[in-house]
């Protein structure tokens, strides 16, 4: 699986620099979004799940050949996506740009993965399902559905209905896939990394069902000011605000698990990634409902502020937790220690500072833009004023990509040169994966 993960990393990362505004940006942007969402995060997630689920079930993956196959199929899809999107072969639907054939392939692949995981869980040797499994399973049930509905490949809905379904998908690829798997991973990683038991299983279940209930209908808050029906907007706004409940439950659980262990982030690098991710998650999820209320939305919508928010979620939160999962599980999969701790540190700081810089510059640029749009100031009068922030964002992109390259280099080196790991605690489940890497 390692190969899949790295292919994903290599695939998706170069385009994080999409932010050179003067390049022919829209094509890059399609590739950026799809590369990050379908390539980097999704593939990484599936990779992590293939490791974590067997571990949690104390069994082996049901079929490794199938797992391998889905990995290659997914990579193939990404190659296809790369070729088509950069040429502008798009469906013109944000986040669902991939053409019909690729759509079907992704969905089939997801179903294969679901089947594989489902069988693995049926084979489990523990009675109780750990909360992470709930999240993984839920996501794997939801996501293929969301994906199929969201692509609208074979239906042509009239404009606004198209938009409603589009945003149902656009938000739920986040809510029912990135969030749920990401949070599931946090539930897996935090107790393991801190070697402390999870604070409360009850809370974690509450969080799970809360997310399941409140996340899915929020999509329409992306088109709050367009002429879609008011009742739909009301549902979206209300459930967006209610999302605070499960999110805060989840975070309480994390932070209580961390209690007394905060010092460990200094020395334990995977944990540091995970904790950073949890903190960013808090920020995202407080920001989100706040943006979804009508008056804030009235002002901020359409501006780069929202772009900042999206990066906070996908980069700040989910990318960090995924990286943490990599750093935690690769030594356990390959039986080799990380080549260099220093490089991990460098990766962390580049990514962390780069991200902070990106977030700040986007948010400030967003505020300028929002003021411009809201008060009807013609763009000519302020486009030069946000220029510095474009450059800052550019810089932050470079930092992040540099961090990611260091990561790839480090992983490469660890595969081929580094010493057998000493940290290995549970080699058994890892063994099954090793074949694939």
């Amino acid at each position, binding site marked *: 699986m390692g190969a899949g993960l790295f292919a994903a990393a290599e695939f998706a990362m170069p385009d994080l620099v999409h932010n050179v505004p*003067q390049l*022919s*940006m*829209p*094509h890059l*942007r*399609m590739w950026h979004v799809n590369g990050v969402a379908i390539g980097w995060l999704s593939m990484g997630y599936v990779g992590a799940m293939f490791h974590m689920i067997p571990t949690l079930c104390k069994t082996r993956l049901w079929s490794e050949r199938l797992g391998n196959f889905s990995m290659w199929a997914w990579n193939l899809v990404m190659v296809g996506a790369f070729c088509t999107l950069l040429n*502008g*072969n*798009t*469906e*013109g*639907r*944000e986040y669902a740009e991939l053409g019909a054939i690729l759509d079907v392939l992704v969905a089939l692949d997801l179903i294969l993965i679901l089947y594989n995981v489902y069988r693995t*869980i049926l084979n489990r040797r523990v009675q109780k*399902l750990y909360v992470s499994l709930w999240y993984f*399973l*839920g996501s794997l*049930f*939801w996501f293929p*559905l969301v994906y199929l509905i969201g692509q*609208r490949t074979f239906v*042509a*809905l*009239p*404009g*606004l*209905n*198209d*938009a*409603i*379904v589009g945003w*149902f998908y656009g938000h739920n690829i986040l809510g*029912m896939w990135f969030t749920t798997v990401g949070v599931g991973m946090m539930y897996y990683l935090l107790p393991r990394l801190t070697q402390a038991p999870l604070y409360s299983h009850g809370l974690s279940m509450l969080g799970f069902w809360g997310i*399941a*209930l409140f996340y*899915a*209908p929020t*999509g*329409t808050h992306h088109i709050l*000011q*367009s*002429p*879609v*029906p008011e009742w739909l907007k009301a*549902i979206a706004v209300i459930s967006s605000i209610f999302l605070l409940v499960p999110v805060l439950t989840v975070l309480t659980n994390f932070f209580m698990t961390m209690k007394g262990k905060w010092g460990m982030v200094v020395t334990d690098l995977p944990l540091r990634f995970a904790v950073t991710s949890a903190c960013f998650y808090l920020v995202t999820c407080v920001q989100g409902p706040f943006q979804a209320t009508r008056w804030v939305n009235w002002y901020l919508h*359409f*501006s*780069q502020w*929202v*772009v900042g928010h999206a990066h906070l979620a996908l980069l700040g939160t989910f990318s960090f937790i995924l990286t943490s999962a990599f750093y935690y599980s690769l030594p356990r999969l390959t039986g080799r220690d990380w080549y260099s701790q220093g490089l991990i540190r460098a990766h962390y700081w580049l990514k962390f500072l780069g991200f902070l810089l990106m977030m700040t510059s986007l948010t400030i640029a967003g505020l300028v*833009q929002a003021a411009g*749009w*809201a008060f*009807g100031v*013609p*763009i*000519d009068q302020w*486009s*030069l004023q946000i220029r510095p922030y474009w450059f800052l964002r550019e810089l932050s992109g470079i930092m992040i990509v540099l961090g990611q390259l260091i990561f790839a280099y480090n992983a490469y080196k660890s595969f081929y040169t580094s010493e057998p790991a000493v940290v290995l605690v549970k080699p058994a489940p890892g063994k099954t994966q090793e074949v694939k890497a």
Partner: protein
Amino acid sequence: MPKEKPESFQQRWLSGYTLGAIGILSTFMIIIFSTVFMPMVLFRPSPSGRGNDYTVEQVADAHRGRQIYVREGCFYCHTQFTRLQDRGYGPLVQAGDYNYETPHQLGTARTGPDLTNEGGRMSSQWQKAHLVNPRALKPGSIMPSFSFLSDRDMNDLVAYIQSLGNKRTSKNFVEAPDEYRDTTDHGKALLDRKTTGKEAVDTNSSAAANAGRGIYTQNCAVCHGLEGWGNGPNAISLEKKPANFSRPFYKQYPDEFWFYRISEGVPGTRMPRFGEILSEQQRWYLVAYLKTLQKDQEVVISKIDQLNKAEQVKLPVLTDQQYEPHTGE
């Protein structure tokens, strides 16, 4: 070893795990049903006749242009819906305007301006030149250059841009945005306050015009001139000259439109937005006054000495003493 009991139905199917899976799926299905399928059934706006129907043959050109718009991803930077607060982008959109817009191009971010009603705003030449080299026409623009488009693509794309919102333009050239007219709640409330209540202003009365005149001299004459001929002392320094209210053209302006202009200024010119400076009542007084300024023949201002003179203002001589900050003694 005790014989294993055959599993009961409950044990087999209603164990925590399967029950969970069922719960997961059903919660989700209910939500999909209510937010995805229900709108498809319940929300079926009938065509408002203001959106473009791309299935009709005549606009085949623009239809292809639209595909290029989609292909080139213009919607990542440009939106296609006007909101209540969007000024200077023309009429508000309605649900029925979008019936033929598939895939929708509503857009998410406004890195560039809204294009809902872009059609006819600029000449096709301008649009083409702008697509090839945006910075030649708009210094500092960050719109990418689309010079790689073939001639045919470019023409179709421009045809599409020019078709945007064509059917939405009002027959009456000087229609104020919807929120100033009685077509929206906002506008109704505004017009109610104008006609009834203690702030009511009769914009046709000479009393109101007289009240407006004072406000005009204080706020507007510097640009629009004492007589409203666009010849205030400031006019000389303005690239886009202030409006000359003696033009007979202005006779057709309805009250709401005057009010809208005064409140929101004219985008792209130095005309300020007085909505934040003057009260609603003051603005209605101004409307009453402006309506009295039109003549049968426009007064043409062509020479610099026709500008209103500005008296040199006598500023106090600055001395260190006079403006020294208080020390608190």
